[in-house]
């Protein structure tokens, strides 16, 4: 079956045999965007988080057929070196990543949170940022999330 969607601002169509194939594998293996990571395949760790119509989605458990006509953003489309997204900017300022593997998922989850809650409290962060980071960079991440909210709100 043919599935069409917009990804990082570009219109794409993919030919796929099984519409239940997780969106993650189409993005990684067909479209060759490797920034979205595989961690568990059960929507339990959040490493594969991306945006579908602005919502944070765990793409390992999101069938590609449901992406039809949707607007997808991955870490590659969030910001650039020259023009990083406020979340990326804050991550850089606070030197958050260690191994870095889970970080795109956290960054995408945080970017989606800030759209809903422009100034999240610690409780908002605890309730919404529930991805897993084994290097345990949570301490710096929390500071970076607060900082990202300030940057995004023009309070830099």
């Amino acid at each position, binding site marked *: 079956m043919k599935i069409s969607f917009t990804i990082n601002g570009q219109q794409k169509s993919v030919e796929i045999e099984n519409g239940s194939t997780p969106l993650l594998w189409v993005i990684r293996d067909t479209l*060759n965007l490797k920034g979205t990571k595989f961690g568990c395949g059960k929507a339990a760790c959040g490493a594969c988080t991306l945006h579908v119509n602005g919502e944070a989605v765990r793409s390992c458990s999101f069938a590609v057929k449901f992406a039809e006509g949707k607007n997808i953003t991955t870490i590659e489309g969030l910001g650039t070196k020259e023009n990083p997204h406020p979340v990326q900017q804050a991550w850089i300022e606070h030197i958050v990543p260690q191994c870095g593997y889970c970080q*795109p998922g956290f960054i995408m989850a945080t970017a989606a949170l800030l759209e809903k809650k422009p100034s999240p409290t610690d409780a908002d962060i605890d309730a919404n940022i529930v991805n897993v980071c084994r290097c345990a960079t949570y*301490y710096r991440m929390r500071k970076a999330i607060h900082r990202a909210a300030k940057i995004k709100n023009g309070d830099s």
Partner: protein
Amino acid sequence: MTKKKTSRRKFLIRGGLGTLGVLALGTYVFRNSMRRYMYEMSETLVVPYSGTGTEANLWFEITSDNTIVLHSPKVEMGQGTFTSFAQIVADELDVNIDQIVVKAAETASGIVDRMSTGGSLSVAQLYQPLREMAATMREKVKVEAAKKWDATASALTTKGGIVSSGEKTMKYAEAVADITDWSLPDTPKLREESNYKYVGKPIKRIDLIPKVLGEPIFGMDAEMPDMLFAAVTRPQHVGASLKSVNTAAAEKMSGVVKIVQKDDWVGVVANSYSEALAAKRKLEIDWDIPKKWTEEEIRSIMQVGKGDKMITQKHGKALDPDDADVVSIEFTSPIGAHAQIEPNGALAYVNGDKVTVILSTQVPGVTQKQVSEALDVAIENVNIVTTYLGGGFGRRLNTSHAVQAAQMAKEVGKPVKYFFTRKEEFQHDAFRPPTHHIIRGKANGNGMLDALEHHYASGDVAINSAIFPPALVSMLGTDVGAMRGGNIMYDKIQNRRAVQWHTTLPFATSFWRSLGLLANTFAIESFIDEMAIRAGKNPVNYRLSMLGEDTLALRIKKVIQEAAQKSNYKDEVSGNMAMGFAASVDAGAPCAHVAEVSIEENKIKVHRVVCAFDCGLAVNPDQVIAQCEGCIIMGISAACHEKMTLKNGQLYPTIYGPYDMALMKNSPKEIEVHLIQGVDAPLPVGEPPLGPIGAAIGNAVRRLTGKRLTELPLRLA
């Protein structure tokens, strides 16, 4: 300046097994006292780099745009080693740090550390060799520039990747362009450390921006043209093995290219990962399950008094356990999973007698050897390419999956990429072994300890590991991994001993960040705290009074004092909050933690941790602090949350969530790290700060509840 083909440097003579090995090999009769001497020495010894690369031009590449590529003998798994290496190189090679690119060396380069990236040793081992290599490279550039200008090399100056002679300048890349026959200088004079521009400064990680943009390539991201995907069967039951398999249904599945059958596993190779996984589920497998292991059986094996015994520390007299004045407390820790987010896997290609494997590994040298043996290919024909690692934590010291990937690739004649499912990752980890501890102590009339004994039982850590030769293990007579943190650091206690009991379990156990340190320190430091409380002493002063005046004891005292002072440590409960104190020393790096804890809805909550850590010379203080923060939260996770158990003969749980880990909501909102640079060389950093956290939390809970928790993970009844 002399011309020679190779330059053998001091650090190479120190290479190989290291001082520990050399010392052991030279002594044919092992008395246990000699071994104990070695154990105590090994606690402060930095085992040297054990690669064979001796030529600076193997380590460095200068590209035409004047980029300096450092081929690193060590891998980057988050610990920040590449950044520290870049700092060292920039300062000695006289280049700007943004001119440097660091890549994990391929085994074909000959410079990878043949042992591992582990033990938190990368910067500690390579600080001096890398300074020498970079300085040598700098002098080589000058020699080549001097030839082009017909000048004297020693009269030239270098800065920012530019070599100058008066008004004339030349980029390093121009100086060394087209050079094939290198003139090698003697070991040059190193820069004064006080003049370093980068070393010692908290500069941003060199992989920071790429990682924030999602650019780096991990093992999971590696690709080759015409690549196929595979999935491999693994038994769900501990100790089970493959009896027979019916592949008929799987073979008919869409996208299947080949089913590869070996004695103890079956692999499905298909056009996509989803197809490989779907076909694997159609394999009808008959497993031989000799027995269904229970949690109780594992617990009953893992007991002090069972297995092989070795006294790892012995000063003064042994306690009489029947003495009515002896206090004895038992502690336990559970099976722990690595749970690193990037699953294990490998991408392999076999082309004739040449093999390439791309993966996340902490042991490229061992992986190379294993693939070479399994495929019967000359070792020099096997190239292991290491990517960034999506977490290491000791899990990637075991890479049997690289062999499986290579075997499948050989059968299909195309590159094959294969990785674990998360369930396989949890069931087939090389776990942190469960432990059991009995601590006995006897106080004098003053409440101070006259005697302290730590008896501890552990599964394999270093024993049965591919990175420790069996000969070395039998020479040492103990599991040196399980021993980490097992000896008693309080040197003023006259009678002290540590006794290790070792048993190999029916499932693989191995290195988990900090090895025995986490559980051993939990047991010892909980006990010390209990004795301080019973004696009515302040636990900080109690600890200080048991430490003497030798260099290490003074450094331990310093971190204890620093943590107490900076946290404004109070022994008394304040409102619903209490502070817990604990300290440890690992690999010569002392650390003390103060945890501020409350109990909310019968759950332990850690609000603030103050850490004092003597890391020696901090090449990048910010990244040392990042390692402390990571160790503290990973330690909270291990100490308060994580536990694998046996259920119906299977290791359980098999997914995040049920395998409870500390997440954002469980992480303290305040972490303060105070670095003390008590020696002028870098010490191991990535593990020692994990030591005291479990005990620090338990000690706070003791103050809040009056109850001594003796079991990890810490839970209130």
